[in-house]
């Protein structure tokens, strides 16, 4: 065998029709999975050579697609070069293959999802809608502007409060456990909508000490993960949370 692969004839992973691949990641995954290679320990020299061999055959590919494959080839060659430098044992995270592995796994996952969608589509097509329908405009709520005003909603709130009025109403929020991951989600959500959020705004809807404490813990956790930055101009001044990438002086 010219390519030096120890696979039986007839299953040569290089005997592929490039047109059946939906991009360089698809092709790489094919080479890895067909040869039962451990994706976390890719023999990068061998895979690079195989990849180059395959795209060497791709004269008939149109230019745009060729570019995508060549870009991946360049990445592989660069990783291969980096692998030649000795690494210190304690630097696991510096494996030059790490990013490629992440991309491959991510792509493989979505390829699986796409297959599941394909099955769902096939199943759905077994249900047939009415063949003949007269043309009718499709109604949609989005076409009607919402006219409900706040006082209507407020009335509903008050009516609800009255209806729920128990003999011994409790004037404290109680019973509901406050979880730090809920708070983290809340902070992330608010920061996805606004560039900065005042800490007080996080706590205000609930206004209890437990919520305040858990919100603060959530912020500290996110600050540690470098997702946000906390800023307070002076002690007792309002505390602001900034989305990390929005920080003007961030590197």
């Amino acid at each position, binding site marked *: 065998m010219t390519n030096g692969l120890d696979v039986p004839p007839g299953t040569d992973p290089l005997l592929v029709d490039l047109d059946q691949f939906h991009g360089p990641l698809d092709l790489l995954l094919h080479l890895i999975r067909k040869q039962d290679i451990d994706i976390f320990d890719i023999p990068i020299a061998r895979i690079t050579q195989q990849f180059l061999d395959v795209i060497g055959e791709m004269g008939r590919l149109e230019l745009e697609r060729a570019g995508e494959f060549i870009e991946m080839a360049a990445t592989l060659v660069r990783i291969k070069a980096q692998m030649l430098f000795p690494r210190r044992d304690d630097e696991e995270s510096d494996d030059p293959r790490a990013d490629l592995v992440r991309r491959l796994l991510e792509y493989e996952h979505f390829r699986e999802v796409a297959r599941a969608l394909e099955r769902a589509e096939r199943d759905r097509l077994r249900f*047939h*809608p*009415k*063949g*003949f329908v007269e043309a*009718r*405009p499709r*109604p*949609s*709520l*989005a*076409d*009607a*502007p*919402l*006219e*409900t*005003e*706040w006082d*209507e*909603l*407020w*009335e*509903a*709130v*008050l*009516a*609800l*409060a*009255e209806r*729920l*009025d*128990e003999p011994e*109403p*409790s*004037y*404290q*929020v*109680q*019973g*509901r456990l406050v*979880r730090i991951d*809920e708070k983290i*989600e*809340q902070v992330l*959500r608010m920061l996805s*909508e606004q560039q900065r959020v005042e800490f*007080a*705004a996080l706590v*205000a*809807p609930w206004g209890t000490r437990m919520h305040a404490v858990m919100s603060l813990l959530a912020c500290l956790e996110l600050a540690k993960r470098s997702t946000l930055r906390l800023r307070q101009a002076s002690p007792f001044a309002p505390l602001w949370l900034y989305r990390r990438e929005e920080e003007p002086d961030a590197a």
Partner: protein
Amino acid sequence: MRHSRLIEALLFASEAPLSPADLARVDDGLDEEQVEALVAELKQEYDDAERAFTVFEIAGGYQILTRPEYAPVLERYDTVPLSSRLSTAALETLAIIAYRQPVGRAEVEDIRGVGAGGVLKTLLERDLVEVVGRGEGLGRPLLYGTTRYFLEHFGFRSLEELPRSDELAVILAQKQPEPDAT
């Protein structure tokens, strides 16, 4: 599969009327006369059950269509402006979500004492509420909160500005009923 149901499926899913000859092709054991009898039977079933649709003979073939008396309703429906006001059910559900977010459907239903599926869909479609996370427990229920559009529409800058008063204590304090409490 019963012949009559094969014919029903074909009449329903076809975009054009089907002649007795077309329909008879569905099974070797069928001839046109049998098809005509089966179609008549189908029509009788629709008429007996007072379905809103029935079988019509059009251009030498059969087709299932809504009865003519529904035409004005269907036409009016297309021109009726969509309701631009929230129903009472929607208002109450929105109130609970606004003040208790993040909150799951089960909790909303417990408070109102009725199902909230349809109302939640309307509020989601209206972009007044959104899924903000998943709760703990069986099936990790979706948790709902109000949207930025909710604040915009009702003129608040943040949830903080929602009015609060002693009367609301109950809404705010209502404990989530324990699943095992009887």
